[in-house]
């Protein structure tokens, strides 16, 4: 679904964003991009949505050679990609419904399709009862759910999310992750850049760690950071081999060694993963209830 081959990107001010990155994401995968600010996560996403072109290397997205695509063909590529951002990017003078329908209208969908799709995706994100609100009347989490609904309205093959929970509190973030997970389960490939330890640790999905523009770890069902020896007892070391995703690209052991030599992780700074996992579960259930409520009110109506 997404393939980067030997991709490097240097910005005009000679900041090296990516060095010889190779990455392959299969259809239906859920991938976390982690790493410190400036490690190249956002650049990677921007290359995938053809917001930028690499200096060297190739980027293939949804079967198209994105890095070589002429700009008049870019709109077509974008229709197979949904994008979600930290700052939501909602239109303040349009209602929730209009924000979502906008994405369908401007890509030329018929009125019939718009009338069908918008309620469906609003239901998916649990905002059916707030369709007539304006973004400023919504909480941060609700606004992000609108932006996810907009990204998913075109039924994209791929959903790219750049720190979607960056502005949200942990409980709200879990609600967002439930929705992204649900979207992933429909077969949509999800790539999400994040700084959120708790989420990555709780979700146990593929983790690609970047540092200084290089991929230093690619782990099938990984945590945000590699635990040092003392933590291994709580995390069975053979978990990776039973992970459900069959197509990790880089051998895991090799990456762990690589990561340990460069990673800043220590046992002392690691937040207790179990505790946060529990918090998350609770909040997630709360979020699910909200969704269920929405379903009920909708079926009533």
């Amino acid at each position, binding site marked *: 679904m997404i393939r980067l081959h030997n991709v490097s990107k240097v910005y005009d001010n000679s900041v090296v964003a990516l060095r010889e990155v190779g990455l392959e994401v299969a259809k239906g995968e859920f991938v976390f991009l982690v790493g410190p600010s400036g490690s190249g996560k956002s650049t990677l996403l921007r290359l995938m949505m053809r917001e930028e072109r690499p200096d060297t290397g190739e980027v293939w997205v949804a079967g198209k050679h994105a890095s070589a695509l002429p700009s*008049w063909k870019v*709109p077509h590529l*974008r229709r197979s990609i949904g994008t979600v951002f930290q700052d939501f990017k909602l239109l303040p003078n349009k209602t929730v419904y209009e924000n979502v329908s*906008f994405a369908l209208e*401007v*890509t030329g969908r018929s009125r019939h399709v718009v009338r069908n799709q918008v309620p469906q995706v609003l239901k998916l994100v649990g905002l059916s009862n707030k369709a007539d609100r304006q973004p400023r009347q919504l909480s941060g989490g609700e606004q992000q759910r609108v932006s996810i609904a*907009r990204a998913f309205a075109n039924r994209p093959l791929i959903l790219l999310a750049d720190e979607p929970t960056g502005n949200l509190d942990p409980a709200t973030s879990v609600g967002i992750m439930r929705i992204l997970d649900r979207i992933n389960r429909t077969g949509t490939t999800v790539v999400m850049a994040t700084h959120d330890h708790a989420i990555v640790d709780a979700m146990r999905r593929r983790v690609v760690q970047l540092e200084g523009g290089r991929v230093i770890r690619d782990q099938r069902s990984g945590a945000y950071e590699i635990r040092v020896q003392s933590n291994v007892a709580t995390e069975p070391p053979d978990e990776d081999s039973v992970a459900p995703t069959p197509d990790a690209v880089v051998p895991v052991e090799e990456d762990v060694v690589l990561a340990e030599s460069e990673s800043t992780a220590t046992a002392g700074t690691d937040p207790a993963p179990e505790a946060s996992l529990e918090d998350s579960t609770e909040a997630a259930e709360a979020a699910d209830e909200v969704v269920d409520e929405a379903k009920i009110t909708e079926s009533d109506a």
Partner: protein
Amino acid sequence: MRIAYVLNEAFNNIRRNGLVVLGAVLAVFVSLFLTFGTLIFGEIARVNTERWQEDVRVIGFLRVDYREVDELRNEIEGWDEVERVIYYTPAEALEEARLLFADDPRQLQIIEDDPSIIPASLRVRPVDLNDYDTIKQRLTNSPGVSEVISADEAVQQIAAIRDGLRVFFWVLASALGVAAIALIANTIHMAIYARREELEIMHLVGASNWFVRTPFLIEGVVEGVFGSALAVATGVFLYNLARNRLADLPEFINLTIDSSFLVQWGLLLVGFGAIVGIVGSGISLAVHKYVRT
């Protein structure tokens, strides 16, 4: 749905930026009104000085029964102060008379009843434009010539004013035309900037380029067409007003011009207004990053 959407966007833009749009429309209006005015004035001057074109200054009308035209013509062409002699056949003379008396049905009727009263003529272009008195004198004494007239002061002045004003108006109209293009470009620039968030999202979700740009092009064209249509309407209105008010002008000045002239040039100017709009918004679209992928 798509076309309706694009049109709707264009008119929303226009409504949101009322004052700026008005400025652009007025710029097109002033520029094309001056152009139209120049054209009308030029046409009136042309009709009135028709027979004095190409620096003809003296006309000798020939007797209807005179036959040795070629001999006479050769003789006159041999004079030192004459540069060229142009022979107007009776048919050409009739054509000219019809044009001259276009606004005088009574005269026209007389001509049509007996076209032979319109004489053929020899039109003389002097070497030096001030030599025409001498030429007039010699022509009067020539055989076959029944009457001699020369371009008088008034005609010469009209011609001079016409040439001067023409240059002045064209320079002014082009300068204002450039200003109109710049103002339309600025209007579109503001419309793009006001909608930059929407445009960013349109690009993100994969709206095609024509879908993003066409509303701005339409906005430019609407402004151009509206301004030029206003200019043409005002021009026609003022021309008709002037023709009615100035009915008692001296007879030798004829304010009537062909209405097909007004229609043709009016349509051309409206088309030109549309082009001004396309160029203006095109410039803006070319430089603006929000409308590029």
